[in-house]
């Protein structure tokens, strides 16, 4: 075993020295290789972080949201619905929610207006989300007026700005009292936008949803796990599409690697010829060349991955953000939590190192079988 390790060590030593002798050629390849890893890793790291973020956000959301449908469209929940649902076993709490969208012509963006049930906001006051506060330049104590859809003007005093930590969900949020909300939107008394139900046992969620659907045939229960699944597949799908598009780049890179590996310079040929003349076997030359490929791969992979990590988590992924994140006027500013996923690293490795090694095998062999005399003579 020790002899084997010793042999590999010498091979690596030799390979490194021979790589250093042809700096320009190898650095070029290394750069392109690292760039490819960088692009692919950026996509992978960024989507994974987004997925994590979505899962984190939805953790706090209700297990089931019940909407009423009229002619296939989302409609208000009329009075008496909450009672009609009554007590379903396994449901911890039922709560009618009040929320709506408001288009603000000043910044040309939609806000989400909401009357929270848990904490009452005093009449005439508002609590606004961080992005709303940013876009309208609001601070606690300021007054702001909105023209309601009815044409009337309403003035409110801002009493608080929601913390930045919750920005992903609260960027465009405006919280107000229930009475204000109903007056502003002229919302019919006793009606709600939708109903949120919390279910303690995850295994019972589907049963509860089935009971709801049979008790209220005109309603649509939306499960949190379904929302989560949709997010996960959307992000995966986006990542997959980007990777599939980039596969052309991988292919081009494989061709480049093939070319680089097969275009042996006269000096390299002579080197191999001398090695074989002093007793190296074809197998040894192949091993040396494989080490060369392996070392280049490893260096490029590490360099590309680290650069991608810095790009995504230090600098906010300026390169891929528009494709992967989606777009909105009041887009939340959020810090991605650094997360590395083993599966993704393994996948990335397959995407880059595997095509490279597959591409250089044949050129390596061609180089290794050169006869010593013909190599040295040429």
């Amino acid at each position, binding site marked *: 075993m020790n002899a084997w390790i010793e042999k590999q060590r010498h091979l690596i030593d030799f390979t490194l020295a021979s790589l250093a002798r042809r700096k320009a050629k190898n650095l070029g390849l290394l750069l392109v290789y690292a760039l490819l890893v960088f692009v692919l890793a950026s996509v992978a790291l960024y989507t994974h972080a987004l997925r994590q973020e979505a899962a984190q956000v939805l953790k706090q959301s209700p297990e089931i949201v019940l909407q009423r449908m009229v002619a296939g469209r989302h409609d208000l929940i009329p009075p008496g619905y909450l009672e009609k649902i009554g007590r379903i076993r396994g449901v911890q709490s039922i709560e009618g929610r009040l929320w709506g969208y408001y288009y603000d012509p000043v910044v040309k963006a939609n806000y989400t207006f909401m009357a929270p049930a848990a904490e009452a906001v005093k009449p005439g006051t508002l609590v606004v989300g961080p992005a709303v506060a940013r876009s309208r330049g609001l601070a606690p104590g300021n007054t702001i007026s909105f023209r309601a859809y009815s044409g009337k003007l309403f003035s409110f005093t801002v009493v608080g700005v929601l913390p930045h930590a919750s920005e992903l969900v609260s960027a465009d949020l405006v919280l107000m009292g229930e009475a204000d909300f109903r007056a502003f939107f002229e919302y019919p008394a006793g009606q709600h936008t939708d109903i949120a139900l919390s279910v303690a046992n995850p295994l019972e969620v589907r049963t509860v949803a089935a009971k709801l659907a049979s008790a209220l045939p005109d309603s649509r229960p939306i499960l949190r796990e379904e929302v989560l699944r949709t997010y996960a597949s959307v992000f*995966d799908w986006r990542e*997959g599409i980007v*990777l*599939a598009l980039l596969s052309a780049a991988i292919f081009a890179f494989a061709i480049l690697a093939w070319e680089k590996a097969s275009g042996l310079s006269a000096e390299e040929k002579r080197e191999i010829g001398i090695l074989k003349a002093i007793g190296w076997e074809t197998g040894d030359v192949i091993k040396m060349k494989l080490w060369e490929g392996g070392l280049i791969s490893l260096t490029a992979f590490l360099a590309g991955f680290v650069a991608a990590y810095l790009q995504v988590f230090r600098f906010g992924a300026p390169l891929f953000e528009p494709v992967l994140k989606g777009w909105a006027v009041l887009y939340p500013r959020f810090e991605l939590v650094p997360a590395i996923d083993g599966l993704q690293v*393994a996948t990335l490795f397959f995407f880059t190192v595997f095509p490279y090694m597959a591409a250089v095998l044949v050129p390596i062999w061609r180089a290794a079988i050169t006869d010593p005399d013909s190599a040295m003579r040429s």
Partner: protein
Amino acid sequence: MIFQPAIIALLLASGIAVAMLAAAAPFALQVIRQWDIASGTERQLLLERRTYLFSTLAAFVMVVQLVALLLFVFNADRMAEMFVGAMCAVGTLNVNPFGFPALLAQMAVFFLAAAWLAVNHVDTRAPDYPLVRVKYALLLILLPALALAFVLQLKYFLGLRADVITSCCGSLFSGDAKGLAAEVAALKPLPAMTLFYVVLAVAAGLTFFHARTRRAGYAAAAASAAAFVATIVGVLSFVSLYLYEHPNHHCPFCILKPEYGHQGYWLYVPLFAATAAGLGTGALQPFRQVASLREIVPAVSARLADLAAFGYLLVALIATYFVLHSNLILIEH
């Protein structure tokens, strides 16, 4: 679902592997028919040169297949959140009828690839390449296996539909269900434990014996295969229970999940490595008497057996640690 990054990577890996082996097949036939190490003809020289290429190619493919199994399981486990009713890899693999066959095929390819790599290793160490014909014949046998694994994977991944309600591991591995897995899961802990430890002890003992005396190679390989089955049975019937600290949860895949600290990998990686080494020992035994391999085969086979013995010992120790570390009590003293 085909646009999952890990799925693209897996299909890429097995697609290229099949293509490479298919490209090597005509050459394999030529080697089997025309190889003659004693001859000095130009054709023989060309063949000898080409074996370097195709041996490297095949070795590369096999090594990739070893890693692909890990990626396959890892990916199946991760995708569970996409399917209604799936809690772990079982649900994902159950989405369509090709899931479990694809996994089993990948496992078969894993062990076949390991055996081929062992044969290839001893062959390249002998000066006259005595096993070239055997190696390439085996390659021709491996090609359909790899192609089958690829087709099963392709069918499985193409047939993944998010709206299928799949079944959870609880229904497949419970004592009340029907089928082989359920029968095994219903085994009482004490006999299952006895079986597990006895078979592992025999396997570790035999492989160790072979490593020291270089005898009983076939027995060591057979014991390795038995130890693989016994460990899977052990995981199904008692190790998983202790890990989950739950008397009825028998799933062999949930232990791979982050909720349980990925502890399953600690068990499966040594198990698969040890079994691959043990089977590799068996694959080398027919060539003990080949003149130029008389020194090489016993040495390599002994090293593989050492590895297997160490692996099984590790599996037993890790399983014991899981059992002792758990708060669950299945057997009262």
